[in-house]
């Protein structure tokens, strides 16, 4: 049997893995695996390349879910128009992975299976409450992405037997949400030693679900990779908006990609305000337990910065949610003959 195979279907891929009886390993983008092979960290006897299986590189939006084939590259994610518009944090996280020449090969699924505590793809998946579909010869099942990580670099997925096939993200415009009048905003914030091609000192993804409104959600992409984000101060406090639910994911602040659950609980039911975001940041800081990295930053620095990036990201997410609202308002005004056209964000 050839040492390198590129099956065309998932069933073939699973069968190939099975036939190698644990000696073959899945390769997706290979951007992490190939260096590991060179270093002798991993020594499979064969590689099963899943990057050419059409269904694993497919992006689809159903009513409730964004379903992404696990072999979808970060380049495809960041360039996908609907993702940029509706799940901007995912597009932003995808553009933060390495740089263009990495993003064209590296896959979201591969990033999750690598299970590094600050994997951009894992942090954003946690905040988006993504689920992963893991297939093995006996069948396949969806499970929360949060349950995939065992420890630094250790996934519960066995790449000699199992294949992460899809990742799905609950979409903000699900009919249920709309009926309940919820608006969502997601955002991404990263601090690094430089603006690109670098592992993060810290990364953070958040999702805010606002309640008590019945308006469409269509925020524009704020863009703005690189540079020093200028988000604080842009949020107009709208007292009537309440946070129904929030998610906050942070890395690397624990052995696994981390959800700041206490900060999330704190946010539930709170109004949108900078003070609330800052308090959530301080709670997230207390929950975090980062390590010192000689080449990136110390534990102390990471702890000092966590509150700020969390509140930055929350502010951006709130801004995005409110942009949706403002668009709605201005539409209403226009429909009712008003000439007062409001600016659509920054």
């Amino acid at each position: 049997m050839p040492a390198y195979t590129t099956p065309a279907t998932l069933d073939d891929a699973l069968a190939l893995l099975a036939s190698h009886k644990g000696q073959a390993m899945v390769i997706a983008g290979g951007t992490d695996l190939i260096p590991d092979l060179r270093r002798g960290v991993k020594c499979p006897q064969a590689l099963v390349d899943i990057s050419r299986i059409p269904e694993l590189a497919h992006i689809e939006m159903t009513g409730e879910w964004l379903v992404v084939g696990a072999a979808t590259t970060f380049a495809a994610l960041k360039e996908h128009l609907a993702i940029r518009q509706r799940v901007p944090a995912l597009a932003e996280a995808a553009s933060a992975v390495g740089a263009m020449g990495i993003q064209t090969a590296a896959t979201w699924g591969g990033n999750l299976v690598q299970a590094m505590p600050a994997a951009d793809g894992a942090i954003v998946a946690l905040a988006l409450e993504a689920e992963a579909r893991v297939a093995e010869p006996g069948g396949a099942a969806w499970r929360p992405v949060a349950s995939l990580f065992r420890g630094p670099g250790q996934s519960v997925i066995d790449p000699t037997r199992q294949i992460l096939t899809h990742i799905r993200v609950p979409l903000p415009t699900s009919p249920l949400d709309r009926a309940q009048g919820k608006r969502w905003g997601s955002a991404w914030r990263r601090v690094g030693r430089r603006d690109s091609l670098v592992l993060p000192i810290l990364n953070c993804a958040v999702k805010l679900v606002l309640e008590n409104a019945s308006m469409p959600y269509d925020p524009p992409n704020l863009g703005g990779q690189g540079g020093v984000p200028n988000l604080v101060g842009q949020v107009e406090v709208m007292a009537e908006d309440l946070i129904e639910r929030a998610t906050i994911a942070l890395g690397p602040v624990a052995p696994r990609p981390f959800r700041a659950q206490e900060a999330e609980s704190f946010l539930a039911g709170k109004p949108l305000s900078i003070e609330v975001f800052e308090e959530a940041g301080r709670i997230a800081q207390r929950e975090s337990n980062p390590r010192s990295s000689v080449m990136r930053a110390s534990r102390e620095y990471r702890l000092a910065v966590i509150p700020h990036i969390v509140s930055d990201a929350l502010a951006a997410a709130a801004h995005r949610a409110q942009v949706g609202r403002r668009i709605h308002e201005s539409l209403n005004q226009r429909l009712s003959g008003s000439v007062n056209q409001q600016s659509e964000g920054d």
Partner: protein
Amino acid sequence: MLDALHFSAMAISFTLNGSQVIAQSDPATPLLDVLRGELGLTGTKQGCDHEGECGACTVLLDGHPVRSCLTPLGKVAGREVLTVEGLAGPDGLHPLQAAFVEVGAVQCGYCTPGMLLSAKALLHRTLCPSRPEIIAALEGNLCRCTGYAKIVQAVELAAARLRGDAPHLNAAHAGPRPIGGSALRSDSLDKVTGKARYAEDLTLPGMLHSRVLRSPLPHARLSSSSVLRPSSLAEAGELPGVIRILTAADVPGSNGFAYYSQDEPVLPPAGATLRTIGAPIALVIAESPEQAERALAILQADLEPLPHAFDLDTVLADGAVPIAGEHNQLATWDLQHGDLEATLTASDHCLESCYETAFLEHAALEREALLGYLDEEDRITVIGGCHEPNFQRGYIADALALPPDQIRVIVPPTGGSFGGKQDPWPFIATALGVFHTRRPVRLVYTRRESFDASPKRHPYRVRYRMGATADGRLTGVHVRIDCNTGGYDGHGQYIPNFALTASGGPYRWPAVDGRARSVYTNGPKGGQFRGFGTGQSNFALECTLDELAQELGLDPLDLRLRNAITEKDWSFLGHPVGESLGYREVLEAVRPQYQRFLEEARQWNQSRVGHPLRRGVGLAGMWYRFGKSGSVRIEAHAELAQDGHLIICCSAPDYGQGTNTVMSQMAAEAFGVDREWVEVVNADTALVPYSGIQGASRATYFVGGAVREVSTALRSEVLGTAAELLDCDPDSLVIERDRVIAAGADCRGVSLAEVGGEFDRMGKPRRVAGFFDLASAFPAEIRPEYLPLVVTGAHLADVSVRLDTGEVKVRRMVAAHDVGRAVNPLDAEGQIEGAVLMGLGAALMEEVLPGQTTGLSDYYLPTAQSMPELQVILVEVPSRHGPYGVKGLGEAAMLPSTPAIINAVSRAIGVRLRTIPATPERVLQAIQLAPAQQGCYAGPRTRNAGGS
């Protein structure tokens, strides 16, 4: 790195540059290795250790840019691969290639193939890319030479042309004369098509591969009984393919290169002390790199660990661990004039400061790569990028105990150096391999090895006491500089002189008390780095002056102007400067932008009280002494070729900075022909004269001077002979294209080739020697060791800083330099743009931590995203002695950028940053320490806490 891929080979078929190919390799082999090896396409470059960290190996896979170093061969089966070799069409260059050549986006050319392909993929997606889109498309491709500005510009130009918006012809740059006309680089065409052959691209039949066993310890003693454990030596020696294992005993001549580096052996004898991680122990020479690698894994040296220290305080303390020299000191240099203490006591203000810098790595995209062989005259020949081929020849000759004429050194196209490739060690090691095997030998460092074993920029600690009157006149300066030379000298013996020279700048100092010393630690060995020891001092000086201006409530620009020396003044060095000075001019040149930036930052900050983002504007100046010491009489040769072409023979190696082009421009100008009529033979010790040491930004001034002299001399010989042939007055003759013709109505003429034929008949040599001689300008009895030739410049930086995270973004910069005369304005701009970004890296990102830094994944070079909006201003105050009024530039351009940025950050946060790189962590720390600092030294630098 041990190549652990071990699948059996498969036949993998794919489309490569439009043709079907079949590769027979392990399917996990990186595509990069298959392209460069089995398929023989060397246009795709390797810059890192197959880690995806540099982008030099970018190719297109089905139109998408990928790292070929991370792409296993198995992945390309049945797909389309495009490399730089396939970019040009049958009708000529791809518009991107043409644009890269035209706008000067190609310097060393090592990143160029990857850049071109990343850009091609972008233009496939859109022909109207925004600037941020271009930057995002290129952010993964590192470039160390250009600062990215001209690359982005080239992509914009190509996009415009593909849209049909811009002219296709490139006549725009061609000036009326060769000098000052932004001539396109003579070698860019090869570099954009992948044809340029760098040292690592060359192979010879029977070529062997050399690898180096190196010390993993910062300080250790080799067993006194043998360098290598005999059992390991026997085992490794018997491995298949292993040809020789060389140790100190195999060095036939002097085991060292003392003129360059005192007390640094080529290979250490038994019992020797190894003073740094990466110190060489033995050389393995084998039929393949993998076989050499296997031997390395087996070889063992018995090393007794010794206490070690990387920082200055530890090695200078009483009872410190002895590393080398007396009290761990290598060299000192003093400079005193005036009564400093009295002056300072009488001054209205006296300010103290202490600044610290880090080990910097040149990180040229091409790693150290050399090929040695026996040439047709049986000379031991080494091809490799370097600054001083004649010196390398001398070091090799000494080590091999051979006369220099049996050694030859050739400089091929070189992928950047910035001083890093001056190290003689890899040259000697390569030659030693050829000496013992009589076969071709290749030596290529891994990137990791380059980080461990190549020379670094010395970290400095600079302490100032500086006096001034209330109205901002400098009264005196007391400066103490400690230069960390690491484990070996590596020219650290000369560093104190340069450190001190730069510490005074182009300012009037009535009293000076300066002392600099170089100090041994167990850090990586120091060495030449762009600016050779001046950048660190200039950083400290220009930041301290900014502190002084702030304390005095003066405008920093005015403070500098008030104290700037003129050509008539005595300089900081205690004697007059030897060249025209344009410092006032460069300061005035940046003034309008300076005032604009200040006002914009002020308004921005004022309108956002309490906002975490603050803006700041910084200014810094510089003087740089170019030219080095040594002979003031520089030689070059000119030859009238058989077909009438002008051939220039000189030694001014082109490692990306463009000397080949500049020399051809100078020769063309002097000889009176088009530049295309000139061929430059450069930097081959068998073919060209010794044109002095190459470095200190001296090529254009010194070697260019010799090229002008010799071209002028040959011209008058040619005109004289032509006059005899035409029976007329030589003064009435001109050279037009390939002919000498009589001016005026008389159309008589004779071709240059015919003149050459006449030379032969007359027995007149076609090749003449010419000299650029400064002896009369600087008579020996009053000539200082280093000629007082200085250039000046000033930079502005406009930054924004996040007060809550310490993140810094350099928004805009302005760089003004007195270049004397820009021989090639496009290239001069390109040098400055690259230098500005290198200075930005030093200011904010770059730091080698001994024993920690592994490569380009954790040594942070600026990317295209780091690039500020940059304006370059070329100020031309003609030199008095240089050819055509030129001055040196390449190194000087890096100096003001770092302090300008740090001054801007300090102004933004309201606290002085005194340690670089100013990582987010250091900046945040400074902000948090703000109340305590109050202008005082904030305590020693801690080395190992990732930024303390």
